[in-house]
């Protein structure tokens, strides 16, 4: 506990110091990054202490009305603290190099202040046990990330994006305030430790819906996600890695935490979560596929993965409500492990995207190509991340998706309703998996392979040493975690025991079902590595004496193929995009060729967000029209405003009398 508190203090102090040494960009940069790294090492230490000695908590009375400074680290918190500390520390190490680019142009101290505050507030969110403290941390998290999104505020559109993010996140907070008021009114306290709803009726469901909207906005559930693909790309890349990798996971944390207070969940909560998961997963990856901006693509892919996580959580909740231990335990295990995996993977991919952005100077996929020759290490790390996020063996992404599939396959034999929902989950995961392969083979293949598509690629270079270190650590984590899953399952059992409130002995039985297949998969993965090595060896031996001839790519006998003849990202995905045009609604801008000897022509596609175009834009337009009718109240005369306040106070007095 002390370790976490001191890591919070270090984060705050180093942030402030970085700000105060703002004039000396180098020093400020160093202090900011070092603070996060030290705080993270301390924090990770505290996780291992909790793992050894169970929960630890701290309660300090506080002057804030209804608030107590009440914090606790339990197993559920540690599950979230782990990626927060790891990804933030590596993002900070990466940012140390990344921000050098901006020395003299940007306020480095301010960037570190908000980054460190963001990390501190995320930690506080997952350990606070008082509604007021939680909301304060939640707001600090939103505000600090808002300022980080505005880092390059002078660029076109970034201001608008920041505003969108601010509004979206506060609509979410509004629902959270309502939810906390309902919960604490029912229990007579704002402290989490005293909350336990046993009341039946509508109340738990209303609280659940508020939590779903409030936390779902942060997590990026479709259709509440519209801010996410705008805000994440706008932030500097190491911040995008933290936002997409860990910040949106605090939404999932909140949802799970609230569910633990609500007693036995209703079955429809589980069905609703699964439905949201499937919609977010399928639509998320479809829209990711259609993007031309690398960071936007990754942001949509985060929505997809949040969808997969939500499917797992939804199965767990459904299992709790119908008292099906296999579904509960394996569903939660899959969802929670995918959460950890996605944190590391999306961190890795965003860091890779940042290296591409800084090396080549653009994130337009169609302007890149052939970067693998210039940036072999970045390319290799990105390849591992891409294969893993598609859920391909032998990497970690496969294992967590496997567990969710496994839960569905195990539930095929029960009643027709559960079997049907399992089938739908299996089909959706298969569809998501195949689309993800299309999406990431496009992202990796077009950016890193082939020939350079524009002058941007000429000056491309590997990033600084610290940026490389962060990426290599995350990539090796992805390979290693793929091998050590059977051994962490016991730890997950403790977390699930906390969520469901069931004794650990009832959790272990269904988990044992899972351990055996996981060990076999590790064996299979090791065999895969061995076969790959053998085939490489065979190739070495046979080709030892053979001369390898370099030639041009075969182009039907036409000499000198050039880079503009290559397939582009748009042409690569065109068949899929055309097939799903009813959903994607991709706009094509094209100059038709009519002459026999045509002039210059061009072709461009863009895919706007479905919900932001069909739901939110009309809704906000309507709201604006309605509120415009009230402008007579807002006439700018101060005396009248004071009068309004007076009237309100009098009305409140009368109401209370």
């Amino acid at each position: 506990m002390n370790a976490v508190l001191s890591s919070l203090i270090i984060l705050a102090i180093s942030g402030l110091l970085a700000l105060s040494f703002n004039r000396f960009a180098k020093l400020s940069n160093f202090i900011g990054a070092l603070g996060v790294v030290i705080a993270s090492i301390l924090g990770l230490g505290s996780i291992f202490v909790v793992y050894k000695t169970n929960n630890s908590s701290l309660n300090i009375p506080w002057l804030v009305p209804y608030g107590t400074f009440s914090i606790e680290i339990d197993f559920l918190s540690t599950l979230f603290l782990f990626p927060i500390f790891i990804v933030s520390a590596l993002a900070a190490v990466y940012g140390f190099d990344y921000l050098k680019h901006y020395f003299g142009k940007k306020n480095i101290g301010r960037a570190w202040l908000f980054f460190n505050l963001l990390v501190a507030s995320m930690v506080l969110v997952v350990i606070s046990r008082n509604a007021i403290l939680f909301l304060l941390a939640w707001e600090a998290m939103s505000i600090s990330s808002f300022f980080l999104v505005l880092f390059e505020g002078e660029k076109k559109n970034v201001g608008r994006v920041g505003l969108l993010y601010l509004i979206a996140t506060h609509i979410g907070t509004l629902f959270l305030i309502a939810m906390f008021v309902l919960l604490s009114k029912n229990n007579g306290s704002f402290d989490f430790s005293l909350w336990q709803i046993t009341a039946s009726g509508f109340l738990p469901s209303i609280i659940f819906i508020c939590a779903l909207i409030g936390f779902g906005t942060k997590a990026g559930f479709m259709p509440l996600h519209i801010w996410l693909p705008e805000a994440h790309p706008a932030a500097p890349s190491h911040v995008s890695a933290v936002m997409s990798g860990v910040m949106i996971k605090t939404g999932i944390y909140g949802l799970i935490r609230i569910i633990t207070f609500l007693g036995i969940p209703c079955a429809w909560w589980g069905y609703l979560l699964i439905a949201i998961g499937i919609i977010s997963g399928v639509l998320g990856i479809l829209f990711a596929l259609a993007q031309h901006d690398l960071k936007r693509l990754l942001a949509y892919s985060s929505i997809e993965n949040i969808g997969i996580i939500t499917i797992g959580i939804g199965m767990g909740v459904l299992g709790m409500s119908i008292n099906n231990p296999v579904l509960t335990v394996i569903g939660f295990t899959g969802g929670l492990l995918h959460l950890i995996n996605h944190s590391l993977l999306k961190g890795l991919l965003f860091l890779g995207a940042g290296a591409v952005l800084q090396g080549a100077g653009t994130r337009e996929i169609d302007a890149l190509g052939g970067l693998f020759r210039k940036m072999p290490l970045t390319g290799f790390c990105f390849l591992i991340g891409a294969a893993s996020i598609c859920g391909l063996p032998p990497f970690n992404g496969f294992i967590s998706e496997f567990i969710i599939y496994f839960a569905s396959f195990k539930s095929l034999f029960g009643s027709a309703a559960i079997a049907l929902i399992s089938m739908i989950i299996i089909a959706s995961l298969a569809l998501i998996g195949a689309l993800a392969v299309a999406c990431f083979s496009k992202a990796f293949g077009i950016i890193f392979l082939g020939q350079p598509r524009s002058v941007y690629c000429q000056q491309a270079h590997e990033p600084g040493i610290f940026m490389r270190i962060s990426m290599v650590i995350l990539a090796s984590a992805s390979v290693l975690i793929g091998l050590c899953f059977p051994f962490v399952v016991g730890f997950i059992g403790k977390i699930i025991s906390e969520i469901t409130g069931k004794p650990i002995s009832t959790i272990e039985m269904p988990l044992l079902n899972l351990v055996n297949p996981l060990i076999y998969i590790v064996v299979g993965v090791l065999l895969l590595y061995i076969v790959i090595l053998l085939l490489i060896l065979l190739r070495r031996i046979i080709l030892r004496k053979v001369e390898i001839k370099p030639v041009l790519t075969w182009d039907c006998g036409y000499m000198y193929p050039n880079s503009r003849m290559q397939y582009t990202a748009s042409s690569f995905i065109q068949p899929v995009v055309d097939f799903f045009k009813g959903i994607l609604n991709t706009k094509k801008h094209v100059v038709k060729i009519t002459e026999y000897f045509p002039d210059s022509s061009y072709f461009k596609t863009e895919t706007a967000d479905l919900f932001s175009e069909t739901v939110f834009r009309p809704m906000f337009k309507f709201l604006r029209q309605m509120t415009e009718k009230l402008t007579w109240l807002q006439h700018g005369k101060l005396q009248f405003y004071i009068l309004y306040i007076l009237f309100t106070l009098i009305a409140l007095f009368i109401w209370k009398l």
Partner: protein
Amino acid sequence: MYTKILQLVLILILSPFLFGVINKTKAFFAGRKGSPLLQLYYDLFKLLGKGVVYSTTTTWIFIAGPIVGLSALTVAALLIPFAGYSAVISFDGDVIFFIYLLGLARFFTVLAALDTGSSFEGMGASREVQFAVFAEPALFLSLATLARVTGQVSLSGIFSKAVITSWAEYGPLIYLIFGAIFIVFLTENSRIPVDDPNTHLELTMIHEVMVLDHGGFDLAYIFYGAAIKFWLLGTLLMGIFLGTSSYGWGQDCIIFILGMILLAVVVGVVESVFARFRLLKIPHFLIIALALAVVALILTMRP
């Protein structure tokens, strides 16, 4: 255990033979004499001894494509049962591992194709990932339906002799699944009516065009991988088709191998009497597979 390893060896040795059977069948329909039954073996040996030519555009991904592809398919061969007898590795949920290994092979083949920077290979890669979008859910749904019917969640369990005893018992459900898997089988192995392995016009090919720039040693890996993939997915079909009573291991194996040869003949016949679909129609064809699997699934919901 020895018999299991023997089964694996049989798969690895026999799978190129089926391509010879297909070509003989096609030659018969065309009134030609055709290439020898063992032609693919000759080709493999010849290719292994040849040199290699690499485009200046390519990186090591181009070399890794065939290696990872063949490795993934070899490991997948460890999971596939033989003649209804358990595979070398069998565990609950190996169905998922199996399909994702095929996915890994696809991912690296696609990347190796994009590595050449050729528009033809980009075209093939683009089609390959598109068709997988429909084929993969169809295969998953078919196998999940079989899992529900048989009460097993491992490939060896689903396709063991003891479980699927007769077509009559399961009725139309099994025909539907057979149809769905057959369509996926033709697609994944790039056979007519989806893809034509013999065409020499780059614009119309899918799998062949992705490996257009591979030659020599690497091409041998690719051909051998394709042969293994044909056997693996063919086993899913024959496992349903031949799921009758047991005559002892040796005879069962002979019957199963004859079954696989029959499948190769059927593919040869299909290739001889059908034309290729237009590319735009192929998603519709695959959606038929999806629809068949869904109907089969609905049939399993009967109380």
